[in-house]
């Protein structure tokens, strides 16, 4: 008995000693990680939620796209820090006069991570794969593809539309020709969409990428999507430790472009905003996304680099014309005049926020500089309400809770300010708060319960159709299924204009008419979302499309 006790005590002491010793060792290794040369080392970035998977075509959210962007390339890419296009896997591209035939001149000597060659056949394999995708489970998850290319070879649902894609031909190894059934303004911008990244045909086949199984309320993806993603990007897939919530990517030494400066890139998933900040301060991560506006000053005061992304978004106040009073243009204009947006920008907007006069940023071709502007004018608002016989109007104003969006970091505060402005001109406001993931979007977009609501959008590529077309290109429940056929026609005509000058002019006119004739909603602001990195991180270029590539990042 005595001996047994002694043994236990010794064992316990040994474990304790071991733990202390090893702890010291682990600590010194950690310190070693952050010090050292300009190249090499590890860059740890805190993500906000787990990615869905790594097959680009089945994804539509920023947290999935973040690692995907590091592992894959698209035919064309956004120039770092802007929404302008530059060559990527295609060095040059052009379309014929009809805008239907697109020729891509591909970069030579590029290899996929599995060692196979990137060439025109690989490009066509990817485009054909997307077009021929079968099964409701797979098709319903290809959100960006169906947005840009309409339907599939065999549609699984009614009303998806006529397919835009026709065929892809590999003229030779370096030339891929994609033929469309119709011209669409989305191109070439949409070719830069992360969802349309080019994957290795060998790996897609080997790991059964097309099999998306439906099971219960959800879908199960292939081994390609979860364990063997293979692209041409500056980082290769290293592993996804789901127990630790860490995605590890490793430097691709054979990358065709600027090779990654760090050896390893780790994306650590930390859903809680406060904890992300603490990890940054503790030095265990070197970058976080979307800091709360209130934290920006403190963080930069502590020496962190708060990098503002150029605002490529819009927050708007939606007006639902299901309410007969709101069908009257004068009432909608009164609402616009009633809002002191300049003051809202100054008091509630993150630094660099600008009042919006149109439903797209001024960097998009087709932005008109001479639209009717609604400067703050409560008297005029009252007068317009009187003329329209809408005095004493009561409106249900919906706003979301439990959410921050890049274009709307603080919904409740924005609501409060706007509601006060409306009440000041005699519009009674009945505020309705709904959780973002608990009915807000349903109430707004499916049931149309609101009179007014807050919503917005971050652009996917540099084209007015991606903003104005998405919002107002057709009747939507959100705006009361309004029968503004004149507006719908104008938008689809602008979108179908092939020559650049004509297209620009058409969109400018659409923007002028939206402001003066239609006003289906009131544009509020463009707010630059920020990304924060530690002092010792260099080379990160903040992108308006949140399209940051970490190959240029070094940690000293």
């Amino acid at each position: 008995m005595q001996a047994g006790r002694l043994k236990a005590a010794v064992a316990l002491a040994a474990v304790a000693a071991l733990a202390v010793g090893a702890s010291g060792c682990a600590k010194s290794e950690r310190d070693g990680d952050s010090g050292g040369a300009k190249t090499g080392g590890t860059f740890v970035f805190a993500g906000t939620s787990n990615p869905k998977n790594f097959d680009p075509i089945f994804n539509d959210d920023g947290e999935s796209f973040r690692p995907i962007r590091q592992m894959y390339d698209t035919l064309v890419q956004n120039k770092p820090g802007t929404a302008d296009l530059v060559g990527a896997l295609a060095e040059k591209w052009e379309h014929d006069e009809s805008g239907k035939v697109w020729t891509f001149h591909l970069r030579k000597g590029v290899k996929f991570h599995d060692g196979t060659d990137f060439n025109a056949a690989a490009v066509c394999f990817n485009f054909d794969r997307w077009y021929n995708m079968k099964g409701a489970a797979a098709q319903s998850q290809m959100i960006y593809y169906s947005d840009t290319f309409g339907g599939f070879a065999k549609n699984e649902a009614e009303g998806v539309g006529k397919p835009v894609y026709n065929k892809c031909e590999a003229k030779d190894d370096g030339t891929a020709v994609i033929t469309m059934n119709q011209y669409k303004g989305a191109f070439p911008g949409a070719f830069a969409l992360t969802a349309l990244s080019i994957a290795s045909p060998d790996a897609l086949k080997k790991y059964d990428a097309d099999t998306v199984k439906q099971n219960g309320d959800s879908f199960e993806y292939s081994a390609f999507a979860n364990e063997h993603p293979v692209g041409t990007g500056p980082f290769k897939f290293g592993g996804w430790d789901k127990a630790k919530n860490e995605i590890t990517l490793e430097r691709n030494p054979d990358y065709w472009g600027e090779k990654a400066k760090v050896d390893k890139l780790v994306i650590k998933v930390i859903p809680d905003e406060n904890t992300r900040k603490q990890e940054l301060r503790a030095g265990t991560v070197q970058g976080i996304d979307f800091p709360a506006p209130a934290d920006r000053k403190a963080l930069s005061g502590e020496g962190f680099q708060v990098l503002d992304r150029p605002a490529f978004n819009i927050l708007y106040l939606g007006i639902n014309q299901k309410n007969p009073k709101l069908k009257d243009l004068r009432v909608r204009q009164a609402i616009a005049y009633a809002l002191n947006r300049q003051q809202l920008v100054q008091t509630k907007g993150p630094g660099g926020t600008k009042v919006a006069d149109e439903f797209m940023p001024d960097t998009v071709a087709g932005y008109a500089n001479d639209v009717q502007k609604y400067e703050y004018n409560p008297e005029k608002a009252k007068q317009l309400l009187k003329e329209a016989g809408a005095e004493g109007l009561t409106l249900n104003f919906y706003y979301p809770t439990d959410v921050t969006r890049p274009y709307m970091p603080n919904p409740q505060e924005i609501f409060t300010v706007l509601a006060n402005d409306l009440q000041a001109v005699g519009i009674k406001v009945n505020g309705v708060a709904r959780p973002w993931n608990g009915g807000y979007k349903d109430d707004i977009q499916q049931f149309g319960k609101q009179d007014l609501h807050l919503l917005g959008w971050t652009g996917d590529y540099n084209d007015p159709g991606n903003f104005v077309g998405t919002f107002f290109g057709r009747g939507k429940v959100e705006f009361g299924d309004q029968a503004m056929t004149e507006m719908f026609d104008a938008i689809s005509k602008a979108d179908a204009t092939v020559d650049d000058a004509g297209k620009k002019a058409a969109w400018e006119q659409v923007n002028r008419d939206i402001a003066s004739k239609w006003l289906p909603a009131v544009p509020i602001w463009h707010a630059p979302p920020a990304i924060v990195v530690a002092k010792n991180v260099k080379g990160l270029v903040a992108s308006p499309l949140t399209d940051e590539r970490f190959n240029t990042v070094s940690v000293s």
Partner: protein
Amino acid sequence: MLRVIVRRLLQLVVTLMALSALIFIWLRNLPGGPIEALLGERATPERRALLTKALGYDQPILVQYGKFMQRVLTGDFGNSIRSGDAVTEVIGRAFPATIELAVAALIIAIGLGVPLGYLAARYHGRLLDNLSIAGTLLGISIPIFFLGYLLKDVFTQNIHWFPPSGRLSTGLDNTEITGFFVLDGLLTREFDATADALWHLVLPAVTLATIPLAVIVRITRASVLDVLNEDYVRTAEAKGLRHKTIRGRHILRNALLPVVTTIGLQTGALLSGAVLTEKVYNWGGLGTLIYDSISGGRDYPVLQALILLAALVFVVVNLLVDVSYAFIDPRVRVR
């Protein structure tokens, strides 16, 4: 006896069936259903329709429930909306994290609580006793959320002694066997992983241990005080037994009975405390999973399984308690 157990088992099946139906119908009628969770901001009417049909939401709720039960009976709870992984796999991954945390908290609570309670009773009415009463009062009344953030602020932001979140340092290469990181490190002789896991475990375990620690101190103290006044202690003293023998064999052993019962009860409380603690420390266990499944994108299949699992555990524990009563008290068996 057997009849009691069989009857209770049948009750268990009925309870779980009723509960599963309730959860199923409730979740499907919450605003913002799985369609919204899956489609996000880019939902168009066509895409909603496609998915509604694909997932079978256009069928009567009873048909949907029938299909769900059919799968559940084969152990298939479907796949997580967020990750696409099988629900059983997702829960299986989170389970060891929570158990590891709860065990560590229990070790702290018992290891400190019993001696402290005993000492408080022995020095009844003196400074140590008063301090322990004040301390336990604070321990019971302080909200876990607040304590977690407070500890984190002090020990990770001001003095950098411990890491702010997670179970292991980023990039630390460890081999996972059981999912209990401390144990895995020992099994694979990756002792740096064990040490690192322990280092990460300290703050969350202390946070989670506070309430059970306070309760155990109080119960031990009260129980030891009771025993001190028992006749047999006085008899032992009168017999001239050594103090050590009296303390160990007569006082502590007898005083521990109610303490053991309390520890059993506190284990249940630990699991609910884990939801908050795990959230604060991004622990990645069942608590984090419940929280994220509700708030971060409504992961219905995971939520459904978690609620059923919790109910199953609760019902089974109750069953065991009832059965053990029947063993202890013959009158229960006759009824």
